[in-house]
C-alpha cells in the first residue's frame, strides 16, 4: 500500500524528522491562504500515488502569489500516468546546497531491512542505480540490533563530511528505521534529503509503502489507503479470496495459483493472444469463489473469451466445475469458454462439465490456442 508525500512527511514529522513547512490544498483558494501563511517562494507539488510527477510537470516553484495560483491551476486536475491530481502540496521554498538520497527497504538476500544512501540525491534513484551503482551505498541492518547509534553514525559519515551534519543525519536515520519497524513499511524514502543554507538537514520529499500483510495491525495506516478504481476492484477481489489484476487483452483467464496464472498468460502470449487479466482463485476451492471470479471476468467489457486453467491440488476440480455450472445458471454468459482441468478430481470435474456440453481441452497449449481461435472468431 502506498501513501502520498504529504502523508509520509506527516509521519516523519511525528517522529521529529525535520520537514518543510507545508499545507495540503484541494483548490486555488486554499493555495492562496497557504502562500499567505508560508511566505514566498513556495513549491507546488502534485500529490499522486505514482512516480514521475516531476517529468510530467507536476512540481513547480513559484516566487509570487500569482505564479503559485497559476501553477496550482495547471497542476490540479492534471493526469499523471492515469492518476488525476486532486490534491496539491504547497511547501515553503528552502534554499539548500546539497541533495542526498536515503531509503530503507527489505533485502531478501540478507533477510533484513537495508539502508540505502547516496550523495546523488534529487534525481531518479533508479537511474543512478543503473548508471552508477557504486554511488548507492547499502547497509543491511541487523534485525537483532536495529539501527544502533554507531551504525547510523557510520552511514552518516559515509555521506556527510561535516560532523554537525553527521549528528543531524544519524539522528534522522535512527528515526527512519524506527518508522519502518513501527509502521510495518516496505519502503521509506527521502529524496532529496537536503542540507539547507543554514546547515540544517531536512527532508524535502517523502515516500512510504507498506507491507499489505501487516495492515491488520496498522489500522492508522490502513485508513490512509486511497485505491484507484482498478485497485478497488483488485481489493474487492482479494476480499473474495481472489487475486485480480486487469490488463488490456481480450482473453479472460481464471487460474489457480500465481505461478500457474503467470505461466498461462505467457502461453497465451506465446501463441499470439492477449490476456485480459491475471486472476488467481487461490488454494481453497469453494464454488462461490468460481462464481465471484466469473462475475469479475464478465464485468470487463474487453473480455471476448474465458479460459479456465485449473491444476487441482488443494483446489478440487469437481468443486470448480460445480461453481462454474452454478455461475452459468445464475448469470448470462454469452461468450465462449475454454476449460482445462487437471489434477485432483479432474475426471469428476470434466464429467460435470461435459454434461453441459462445454468444450474441454487436454493441455495448456491446446487451451491457449483454442481460446485465441475463438477470440479471433468473435471479431
Amino acid at each position, binding site marked *: 500500500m502506498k501513501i502520498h508525500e504529504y502523508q509520509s512527511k506527516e509521519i516523519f514529522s511525528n517522529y521529529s524528522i525535520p520537514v518543510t513547512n507545508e499545507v495540503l490544498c484541494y483548490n486555488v483558494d486554499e493555495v492562496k491562504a497557504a502562500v499567505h501563511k508560508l511566505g514566498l517562494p513556495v513549491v507546488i507539488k502534485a500529490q499522486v500515488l505514482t512516480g514521475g510527477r516531476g517529468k510530467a510537470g507536476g512540481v513547480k516553484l513559484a516566487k509570487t502569489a500569482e505564479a503559485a495560483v497559476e501553477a496550482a491551476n495547471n497542476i490540479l486536475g492534471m493526469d499523471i500516468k492515469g492518476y488525476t491530481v486532486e490534491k496539491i502540496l504547497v511547501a515553503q521554498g528552502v534554499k539548500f546546497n546539497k541533495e542526498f538520497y536515503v531509503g530503507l527497504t*527489505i533485502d*531478501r*538476500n540478507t*533477510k*533484513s*531491512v537495508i539502508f540505502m544512501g547516496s550523495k546523488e540525491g534529487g534525481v531518479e534513484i*533508479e537511474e543512478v*542505480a*543503473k548508471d552508477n551503482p557504486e554511488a548507492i551505498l547499502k547497509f543491511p541492518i*541487523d*534485525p*537483532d540490533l536495529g539501527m544502533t547509534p554507531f551504525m547510523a553514525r557510520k552511514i552518516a559519515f559515509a555521506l556527510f563530511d561535516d560532523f554537525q551534519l553527521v549528528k543531524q543525519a544519524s539522528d534522522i536515520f535512527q528515526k527512519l528505521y524506527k518508522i519502518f*519497524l513501527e509502521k*510495518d513499511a*516496505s519502503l521509506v524514502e527521502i529524496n532529496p534529503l537536503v542540507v539547507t543554507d543554514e546547515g540544517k538537514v531536512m527532508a524535502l520529499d517523502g515516500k512510504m509503502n507498506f*507491507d*499489505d*500483510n*501487516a495492515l*491488520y*495491525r496498522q489500522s492508522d495506516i490502513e485508513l490512509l489507503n486511497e485505491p484507484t478504481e482498478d485497485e478497488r476492484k483488485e481489493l474487492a477481489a482479494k476480499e473474495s479470496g481472489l*487475486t485480480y*489484476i486487469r*490488463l488490456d487483452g481480450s482473453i479472460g483467464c481464471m*487460474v*489457480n*495459483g*500465481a*505461478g*500457474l*496464472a*503467470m*505461466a498461462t*498468460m*505467457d*502461453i*497465451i*502470449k*506465446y501463441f499470439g493472444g492477449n*490476456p485480459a487479466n*491475471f486472476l*488467481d482463485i487461490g*488454494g481453497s476451492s469453494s464454488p462461490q469463489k468460481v462464481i465471484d471470479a466469473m462475475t469479475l471476468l464478465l464485468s470487463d467489457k474487453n473480455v471476448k473469451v474465458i479460459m479456465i486453467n485449473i*491444476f*487441482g*491440488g*488443494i*483446489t478440487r476440480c469437481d468443486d470448480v466445475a460445480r461453481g462454474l455450472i452454478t455461475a452459468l445458471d445464475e448469470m448470462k454468459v454469452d461468450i465462449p469458454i475454454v476449460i482445462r482441468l*487437471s*489434477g*485432483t478430481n479432474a475426471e469428476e470435474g470434466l464429467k460435470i462439465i461435459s454434461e453441459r456440453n462445454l468444450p474441454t481441452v487436454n*493441455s*495448456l*497449449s491446446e487451451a491457449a490456442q483454442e481460446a485465441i481461435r475463438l477470440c479471433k472468431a468473435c471479431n
Partner: protein
Amino acid sequence: MSILVNKNTKLVVQGITGRDGSFHTGKMKAYGTNIVAGVSPGKGGQFVHEIPVFNTVEEAVKKTGANTSIIMVPAPLAADAILEAADAGIELVVCISEGVPTLDMIKANSYLKKKGTKLIGANCPGLITPEESLVGILPANIFKKGNVGLMSRSGTLTYLMVSLLTSNGLGQSTCVGIGGDPVAGLYYQDLLQMFEDDPETEAIVLIGEIGGDAEERAAQYIKEHITKPVVAFIAGQTAPPGKRMGHAGAIISSGSGTAEEKITAFEAVGVPVARRPVELPDLLKKQMKK
C-alpha cells in the same frame, strides 16, 4: 537419500486442530508421512486423526521426538510458531501460512540462523520426497519416486511441471516449494547445494518467477558450485512491469527482475530455460544425456 524429508522425518503439525491443519494432516498421514504429534495451545490431550495433540512444541518434541514441523496457523501467529519450533529444537520448519508480515519473518530468520534451524516458506506448498514423506499441501498423486530434484517459488505451476515430468518418466528425488514471499527461509542456493550433495539426485529443475534477483543469484551459484545438470523455467515472461502478480515476490519494477533478464542469466551459465512448461521434460532429458 533425497533432501530434507525422508523416512526418518518425524513430523509435528502446528495448528493441527484448525480446518486446514486437520485436513492436510489427514492427507499427509494417508501418504505415509510419519506424523508423531500435533500442537494447539489449550487442546493438549486431544487427538486428531489418532495423532496426539500437545499444548506446546517443546512438550511434543519431548514426548515424541519430533524433528520436523509444519505450520498451518493464521498468518499473524505464524512467525511465533516458527520461533517456538526452533526453540524446541526442531531441525526443519515448513511454514505453509500465507500473509505473514515481512518484518516478522526477518526476526524469525535471524533467530533460526542462531539456532541452526532450517526453514521452508512461509507462504509455500511445502515439500515431498515421493514414496517417503509429504510435508506440505502438494497433491501427492502426481509425484513419482526418481532422480530429479525440483525447487520452485510457485505452487500450482510446480504441480503442472511435476505432472509433466512424471508423465515423461522423470521421477523426483525431492520437490520443494520455497514460497514466494520477500523474505523466505531456504532459498535456491541452499537447495541447489543440497541436491548437489544428494547422491539420489541426478538432475535439478528450478522453477522461477519474475521479481527480485533470486534467479540471477542462483545462476551465479550454479556456475560456481553445481556440477549436476540444471534446467529452468521462469513464469511471468509477459507480465507487465510494476504489477504485483499474487506473490509478494513476483513484482517487476525499474527494469530489474524481468523474466528476460533471468532467462539470460541462466543461459549464460549453461542452464537451458524452457519457454513453455511442456518443453521442459525434453530439455531435461537432453541435459541428462550430456
